[in-house]
């Protein structure tokens, strides 16, 4: 018998044979079944599909350089008294919030009568390589907020932020607290001193200066490759084996293609912004230590005193709970809440299960703090899916 430690070239093909067998071996015994599978797969792949994403109508109300501001308005009467702004990350696109009917945060908000603005960071080109965090936070973001406030003739707005866009928004809120009425952070990294995510380990070993010199703006493809390498077995093999297993299922293929379109639609990241983000956040962890400076001003988290809802995901491999759960303890707000959902980084926005929890929770929380509906009394104990909930006693200062 061959030594189990011995491997030759043909053995190296074993894994690939295994994946192939999974798809075809079960079918091979039954010629008719195999024929049907191939025929259906062909029909599915050749038939017209609706794979467009972000199909909900919106209006572009503000533009500055590559950055656009989208405005979504419900068919019904709007309910919020204060304008509502959503800031997405600069990595990947905000279209994730409107992936497909039935799995769309945009749709959920509109159905609840919320009108809102959403920042589209666009696709940076080489001329954007010198843009810093200060340019994005005190430049584009502040200009957008001022535009909205002026349009509504009001002094503050609700801000909801996603992932790295959340980090920018936390910095913005600390620098301009008077303009933010309520803050909602979702899967937002604020503490970078953890090994809970491979990204943190790798980012700390990166030399951002060399990368910037190598590429200028950091290509989205390079970042995507990094994300794939976080779990190659699942993201580069198992996912596509699953696709081949279900290639004869029209709905599955349509959804799969939509998700692929979103995942690999990644804008480049402006060089200087990347350099600052890796150095000041991943390497030095300055934000949570209150040592960060942006545009010559110190970012003090204690200046965040408005109501804050901080939502993150238990199985998030990009922004694990350890990167999110210190934030609430560092801010000056009294009305603040941590909510850890039983899902992953993307699942929080697109999984059909979370759609029933995530969107409705935000709508209720906002309407209560906007004075539209009466604030529900605080429940004494956290219940599923709330994993952790901080003490929330006082009303927001503005109420």
């Amino acid at each position, binding site marked *: 018998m*061959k*030594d*189990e*430690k*011995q*491997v*030759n*070239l043909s*053995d*190296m093909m*074993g*894994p690939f044979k*295994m*994946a192939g*067998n*999974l798809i075809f*071996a*079960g079918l091979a015994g039954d010629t008719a079944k195999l024929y049907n599978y191939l025929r259906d797969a062909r029909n599915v792949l050749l038939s017209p599909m609706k794979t467009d994403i972000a199909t909900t109508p919106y209006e572009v109300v503000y533009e500055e*350089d590559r950055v656009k501001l989208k405005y979504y308005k419900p068919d019904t009467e709007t309910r919020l008294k204060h304008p509502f702004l959503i800031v997405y990350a600069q990595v990947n696109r905000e279209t994730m919030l409107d992936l497909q009917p039935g799995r769309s945060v945009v749709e959920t908000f509109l159905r609840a009568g919320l009108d809102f603005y959403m920042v589209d960071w666009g696709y940076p080109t*080489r*001329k954007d*390589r*010198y*843009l810093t965090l200060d*340019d994005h936070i005190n*430049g584009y973001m502040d200009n957008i907020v001022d535009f909205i406030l002026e349009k509504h003739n009001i002094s503050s707005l609700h801000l909801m932020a996603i992932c790295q866009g959340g980090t920018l928004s936390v910095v913005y809120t600390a620098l301009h607290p008077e303009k933010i009425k309520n803050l909602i952070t979702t899967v937002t990294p604020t503490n970078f001193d953890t090994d809970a995510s*491979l990204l943190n*380990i*790798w980012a700390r*070993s*990166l*030399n951002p200066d*060399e*990368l910037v*010199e*190598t*590429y*200028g703006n950091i290509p989205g493809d390079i970042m995507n490759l990094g994300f794939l*390498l*976080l*779990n*190659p*077995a*699942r993201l580069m*093999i*198992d996912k596509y*084996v699953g696709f081949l297993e279900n290639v004869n299922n029209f709905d599955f293929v349509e959804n799969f293609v939509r998700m692929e379109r979103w995942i690999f639609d990644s804008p480049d990241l402006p060089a200087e912004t990347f350099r600052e983000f890796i150095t000041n956040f991943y390497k030095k962890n300055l934000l949570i230590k209150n040592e960060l400076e942006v545009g010559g001003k110190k970012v003090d988290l204690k200046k965040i005193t408005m109501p804050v809802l901080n939502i993150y995901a238990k199985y998030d491999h990009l922004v694990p709970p350890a990167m999110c759960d210190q934030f609430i303890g560092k801010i000056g707000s009294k009305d603040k809440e941590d909510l850890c959902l039983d899902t992953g980084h993307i699942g929080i926005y697109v999984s059909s299960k979370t759609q029933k929890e995530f969107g409705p929770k935000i709508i209720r929380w906002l309407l209560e703090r906007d004075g539209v509906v009466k604030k529900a009394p605080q429940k004494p104990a956290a219940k599923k899916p709330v994993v952790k909930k901080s003490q929330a006693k006082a009303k927001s200062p503005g109420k």
Partner: protein
Amino acid sequence: MNKEEKEKSMSQDTLLESWIKASTDFWKSTASMWPAPFGGISPVPGEAGKEGGDKSTEDSWKIFSEIWQALFNLINKPVTGEFHPESSLPEWMLKASQPLWSGYLLFQKQWMEGEEKVSAGGLEGFANLSQKMTKAWLEMYEKEFGQILNMPQLGLTRVYQERVNQTIEKFTQFQGALTEFVQFLLIPMEKAYLAVQEEIKNLEEQGKETLKDSKSSYQLWIRKLEENYMALLKSADYTEKLGETMKALHDYRVVRTQFLMDVLQDLPIPTNKDMDELYKDLYLLKKRVKELEKKVKSYER
């Protein structure tokens, strides 16, 4: 060819031979005065290192000298009469490429030894052999070709030639680093396959039912693969290898950009450097205008 022509030809050969010898001696003595890493060799073989030279630079000189001698032998052959490319060219090529062949043969020998060990079941696996061979190839490259590319260039085109050589060198180094990195990523594949074999064997030994179908085999394999990848990706070795690969990529892209900018100089196309300078000016101007706009707005209020 008559007697007079023969004498004339011989005197030309002697003259050429003397020139070749003189020039060889000149470069050899000049090289001994060069500082490391390009020279510093002792003019007397075997005394390398006494004046800052080392064995590798002495070897480089030896290789260069052999190639030069091989070229000389070809040139020194009587060109009058019938030309026999089928005999003279292979001889020249053989001599000129002897140092390169010796390196290649050494590499091939190591490969054969590795293959033999794998066939005998004595080595850890294919990925391991592949890694060792890449390392051997890179070492051979560093000792042989790499040193030739780093030989000093002279004259008006020195800068450009150096950039071409650097681009070739850094590209090769990047390819080497990338190959090593990819091989690193293949290790979990092999380990997962072995783990599946081990698990099936254990089940058989315990008299338990082995994996029922392709699906359960695949599920076991993908689980083992995920575990092995997680172990690898969290390791310091991986982070180090990733860092080395990124560094090699950076070094290559920097020299490639310089090389391409040299090429673009002759074409009516702006280089990245030109455009970056322009973009920086534009960035600063826009920033200034926006600040002024804000100030004006605040005064208006």
